């Protein structure tokens, strides 16, 4: 989205995909793309790497936490309200002078409700923010190597005139394979 190209020149080519064997090369590749202003990228790793997240999101925390907080507040309110109202709705006199709405035992159900709904909201946030079940991802991210022992970068919405520059950045960063990005897609650049 932040690819700085004039509107009339925005004829896009197929996404460019780079495959890496080394983590430091991957980081160099992401950094190179970032410096050149190409931010419409997907980085695939078989496991989470903090360097990648730091580089792309610059330490901005995931908004998941707001969902968790909201879920917790919702759960606490709901659980306490439910126990209190259901008890008040059936005003049975308890022996021993216990009040209808007695706080200490109701705290237990309130606690369970808090945890339950905070978890459910967190799960919903995960699905929502990760866009799971996954859709709208370019075909190029589908590579069995990315869940095994390789890393990958896919650059989307590449302007035809930028393709060569992007591929050069990726190839020079140490990618073992660079494909896509128009007619010369067949010749994968090879470095290292």
């Amino acid at each position, binding site marked *: 989205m932040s690819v700085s190209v004039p509107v009339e020149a925005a004829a896009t080519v197929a996404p460019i995909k780079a495959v890496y*064997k080394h983590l*430091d090369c991957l980081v160099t590749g992401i950094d190179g793309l970032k410096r050149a202003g190409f931010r419409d990228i997907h980085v695939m790793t078989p496991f*989470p790497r903090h360097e990648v997240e730091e580089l792309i999101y610059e330490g901005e925390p995931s908004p998941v936490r707001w969902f968790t907080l909201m879920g917790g507040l919702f759960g606490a309110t709901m659980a306490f309200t439910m126990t209190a109202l259901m008890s008040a709705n059936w005003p049975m006199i308890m022996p021993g002078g*216990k009040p209808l709405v007695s706080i200490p035992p109701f705290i*237990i159900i309130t606690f369970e409700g808090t945890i339950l709904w*905070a978890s459910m909201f967190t799960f919903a946030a995960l699905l929502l923010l990760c866009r799971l*079940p996954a859709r709208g991802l370019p075909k190029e991210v589908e590579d069995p190597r990315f869940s095994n022992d390789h890393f990958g970068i896919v650059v989307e919405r590449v302007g035809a005139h930028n393709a060569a520059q992007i591929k050069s950045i990726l190839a020079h960063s140490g990618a073992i394979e660079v494909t896509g990005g128009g007619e010369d897609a067949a010749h994968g650049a090879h470095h290292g």
Partner: protein
Amino acid sequence: MKGPTYSSVNRDVLAPLFTPNAAYMGALTAALAALAWGGYCWAQQLVHGLGVAGYRPPVFWGVYITTFVFWVGIGHAGTLISAVLFLTRSRWRTGIYRAAEAMTIFAVMTAALFPAIHVGRAWYAYFLFPYPNQRQLWVNFKSPLMWDVFAVSTYFTVSTVFFFIGLVPDMAAVRDSTRGYTQKLYAVMCLGWRGTDRQWRHYMAAYGFFAALATPLVLSVHSVVSWDFAMAQTPGWHSTIFPPYFVAGAIFSGCAMVITLMLPLTKIFKLEDYIHVWHFEHLAKLCLFTGGILTYAYGTEYFIAWYSDNIYEWGTFVDRVVGNYWWVFATMVFCNCLAPLPWYFKKVRTSYLWLFVISILINVGMWFERYNIIASSLSHSFDPAGWVYYVPTYIEWGIMLGSFGWFFTWFLLFVKIMPSVAIAEVKEMMRPPLKSDEEVAAK
């Protein structure tokens, strides 16, 4: 020494999937046979009523509630290992947490059967849930049994979702190594996971929160279960020490069960590269720690019973040692307090044989601990005219056996369907391949 590489992690962890061998089929058959026998016994109880159990007034809690508490306790180690050890960044968690978490879920699923079995008319089990007052029944939120419904169902839901989230990236790895329908099935199960930066970013945040939410749950669930007893006035039950004592016992038994399950799993599926004796040693140490708390709690219980100068309380505690259930008490003390002690020696806790033997003894001991609490207190309560000797019938033993069949059936299915070691997390712990390393090596 050449350690595992990223691709060898995938290869080794995915190798045991799908193709069962004779030993596996034998184990599954045994589990199913136990389950079938349990099912037969339960059917007998459904047809003839609760009279087939050994209950006699005033003992109406017996093997079923004992087994319920036993399985809930087993279910504690998984979430402890996956959540608490995640938050404390314990490196030894990665190899074992997946199977431990699966164990948790299956144990809670097993426990969840028992309230329904215990109430007799299982088709009314839905009365356990908060029913609307319109059904002319009063919801008592001041009852620990009600808290228990909330605690166990919350624990089950949260653990299952936590387990599922952990599995998503690994299911994607299974998808990428299979073909055809299997691949399609795993593509659905992993929700189309691709491991993109965006996915990992929110995933890691959510995972951290799940761990943080599950941690107090581990402590709360068995506290609530202990209140099922401690809130009653029955001698031997009415004690404030119960929550910490039960939680320690639950972690103790759960870790022992992890050892019992993981040792054969590691050996049979050749996962020694990922689950070392080092992992088991840590589990054994955790057992020693919680077992120590448990032994201390047993002592405190007796001290307080004596110090209280309450004849009913002290009478029950004396009866536990010298009464009808002396053998239950003796088994409990031997298995829980004495049997783990050899683990203080490194030689013993690094020997697979002794790890296995002692972990089984702990499992036995922890079942008898609950039986000791339930049967001896109820059968020797306030009124000497009401003292009885409750002896379980073959129906009750059969249903208990069936619960093991049920648990092991699920666990055996799990090891063939899902990766039993967390692939992504094992890789996270390895040193990533760096170009700079190779350049240094080349010089």
